[in-house]
């Protein structure tokens, strides 16, 4: 098991390297650079000075090597071009923290409650709870998150002033954003869970367990959950990674200092160091979460053997 984890971590660095390289070159081939994003036509001299300052005048592959050198020798991802003086690594550390306070909590709530509701829906298949939960699940995904955000903002800060409208700093500031962001995961996991629980409870071993005399809750806990949670886990991995860039919309609406707005602004402004930094971060989280999910696969379902055991 340990060998497997180490091997996967090595793979992770390999994947990170490849994705970073691809993103780096893709990024440079899109027309535009941080300067063209600025409107006023800059004097020729400024352009030359500017490009020289950030090393943008060199050919792309040299820039790439410089970038790699920076990572391996100094452990730095460089500085943002659009926001001078802001170290990309620091930005990533600080603002991913804020994004995760909203996003990860929302996904966690969505996952836990979704799993519970989904199981309930499946156990009471086609009865009233199932139908009601089904509708809630649909609504949760049908309404685009930016609409949900604006409506909730108006309802709960203007109509019934319970929470602060904008900004960051107190736990009260986090309630509405988390609420808005948890609808979609909630609906997703409810659906997946319902489907896989339905699959499982029709299996023979469940009937066997019930016949053996196990209580209903025992059956659910020991047999149903373990066997049906895998598809939901599969989705959880990418979900966790998406939170850091997908929360952009909620961050705009509620003025939350998160990573999403840094990322979108960077792409629009062609702020190369920031784009690469965010992309690398996203990739690392994504690949890490995939690793965690794969390990959970093995823990939860003993039928799945690790690749080399076959």
């Amino acid at each position: 098991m340990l060998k497997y984890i180490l091997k996967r971590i090595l793979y992770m660095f390999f994947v990170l390297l490849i994705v970073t390289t691809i993103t780096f070159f893709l990024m440079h081939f899109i027309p535009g650079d941080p300067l063209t994003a600025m409107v006023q036509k800059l004097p020729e001299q400024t352009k030359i000075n500017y490009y020289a300052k950030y090393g943008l005048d060199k050919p792309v592959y040299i820039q790439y090597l410089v970038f790699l050198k920076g990572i391996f020798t100094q452990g730095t991802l460089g500085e943002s071009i659009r926001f001078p003086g802001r170290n990309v690594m620091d930005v990533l550390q600080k603002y991913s923290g804020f994004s995760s306070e909203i996003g990860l909590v929302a996904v966690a709530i969505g996952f836990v409650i979704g799993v519970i509701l989904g199981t309930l829906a499946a156990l009471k298949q086609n009865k009233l709870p199932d139908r009601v939960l089904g509708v809630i699940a649909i609504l949760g995904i049908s309404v685009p998150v930016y609409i949900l955000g604006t409506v909730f903002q108006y309802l709960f800060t203007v109509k019934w002033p319970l929470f602060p409208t904008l900004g960051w700093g107190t736990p009260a500031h986090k309630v509405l954003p988390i609420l808005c962001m948890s609808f979609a995961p909630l609906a997703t996991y409810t659906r997946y869970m319902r489907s896989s629980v339905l699959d499982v409870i029709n299996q023979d071993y469940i009937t066997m367990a019930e016949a053996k005399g196990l209580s209903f809750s025992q059956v659910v806990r020991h047999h149903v959950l373990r066997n049906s949670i895998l598809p939901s886990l599969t989705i959880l991995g990418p979900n966790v990674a998406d939170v850091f860039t997908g929360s952009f919309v909620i961050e705009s609406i509620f003025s939350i200092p998160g990573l999403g707005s840094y990322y979108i602004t960077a792409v629009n402004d062609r702020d190369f160091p920031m784009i690469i930094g965010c992309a690398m971060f996203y990739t690392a989280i994504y690949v890490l979460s995939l690793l965690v999910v794969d390990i959970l696969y093995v823990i939860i379902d003993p039928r799945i053997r690790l690749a080399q055991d076959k």
Partner: protein
Amino acid sequence: MNTFDLNLSDDLFTIEGCNADEGEKLLRPHTTFLKDAWRRLRNNKIAIAAMCLLILIALYTLFGTMICGYDPTKMSKEMNQAPSLKHWFGTDKLGRDLFARVSIGGRVSMLIGVVGALITTLFGSIYGSVSAFIGGKVDAIMMRFVEIISSIPYLIVVIMLSLMMNDSGVKSILLALCIVGWCQTARLVRGQVLQLVNSDYVTAARTLGVSNWKIILRHMIPNTMSVIIVNLTFRIPNYIFSEAFLSYVGLGISSPDTSWGSLASAGKENMFFHPYQLFFPALMIALTMLSFTLFGDGLRDALDPKLRR
């Protein structure tokens, strides 16, 4: 009552004998897998209702403009009007009839949603099953490949594609979504297949000498069907929303084409004053999602061999 108290004696029973023909009698009419699935689906009233709703929506997107008689791109002086007998869904801020706009918007959304979801699900399922079935090093390599593809920031891919293809229309968005989207399905299916790969009937089939392809197609995929279908019914609105998100950020469909996502995005501006501009596109998305979900549930129930009655 204790069975041991029954006074059972031989004279209470007579031997009927066995009818050899009875043993071979088929109690159910002969049917193929698909025919049987269709029969079960037909009996599921809710699924049928959902299917009808979907057909209605499809008809609306195809013939909506003809029904109301308005040109969705024609501007008029009747701006921001609430729904009335003249304009069933009201008008938008340029005076265009919303019933017609939502109708043509539906074409793009449904196209992106359905075609995109179908392509990615098809490709992803096959890829995932093959990967899990073969297992070992090949599985590891194939999955790493999937990781790499899905890790590339998809915004950058979208911008690149729309620039390379020199248009920001339906094609480039569809392509971008497909390129990054099939990965999730592949992972899902791989997970399910991994669970099945060591089960008895697969071992039996292999022992019998059935070719790998046949095993995948006739055993693995039908048994992972429920997950694939649920995934499919999620993908469709997911893609409709991805397109909406791209519109919000500025990379979506451009005029004169429109989609439900762009209409909802545009409706957000006037949300507090002309809520119907937002309500109708959002309603269409919700109804489409609802129908696909219920239909998908019914389809899943119908195709799942274990639920056979």
